[in-house]
């Protein structure tokens, strides 16, 4: 259960970073989910 929470937090952080236009390559970037914007 703890691992699941850590994994979920990690994925959320990656999503957050990615939605700030930061990504490791000239990657394709889909529109970030609305829920992510609400979190700001």
């Amino acid at each position, binding site marked *: 259960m703890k691992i*699941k929470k850590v*994994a*979920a937090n*990690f*994925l*959320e*952080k*990656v*999503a957050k*970073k*990615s*939605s*700030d*236009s*930061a*990504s*490791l*390559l*000239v*990657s*394709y*970037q*889909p*529109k*970030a*989910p*609305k*829920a*992510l914007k*609400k*979190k*700001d």
Partner: protein
Amino acid sequence: MNIIVKKIKMVISMLKLSLEKISVRIINNLFDDFSKEKKEIMVFGLLAIFSTLIAYSLIIIFSSLFGVLLFSLVGAVSFSILRVFSGGVHALTFKGCILSSVITFILIGLKTDYLMAFLGVRELSILFWFVFILASVIIYLYVPAQVEENLIEDELKRSKLRISSFLVLFCLLSFYFSLTLLDSLQGVVLAGLLGILWQLFTLTPLAYKLYRRKYIRG
């Protein structure tokens, strides 16, 4: 040749579709008790990880075929480190992302391999100063470079990204400068500097034009 390119594009399109499906399936299976909103965010995160892993894997495979794995990888890593903070243009499609990343870093590897023979400590020092001055101006003017899908509206956040980019640039350049003292690593230094230069280019309005994206000032 045309048929091969068409086939490659088709495979990449299929890969993108399956990646989205796989990400949704993984998140739905592993996190079934989470809310729908949270799951959407996690799918977005997982897709970002998958696309980066695929692009890096392809860079490793193809640059190995050309015999420039080390240089391509050093260029890609320098590029990526700076990009996390500075942002930059994004490709319009998944195909565009994969193809431009792989082609760019193979070219950086090949260019480094070719130019290495002409480089001495003096030339590298000049290049260092050139990159430092150019980077300072570009970071000041264009960071954070954004895309219209995901804008950064908070001014404080934008200033933080600008300052972080300067610090990361300084650390990267200091690291590579220390490597110039070792004769055998001059190629690595050059590849790193070319990676930084390419990332600087992706911050400029010209890069947005090249990738057919609307330029949004940071």
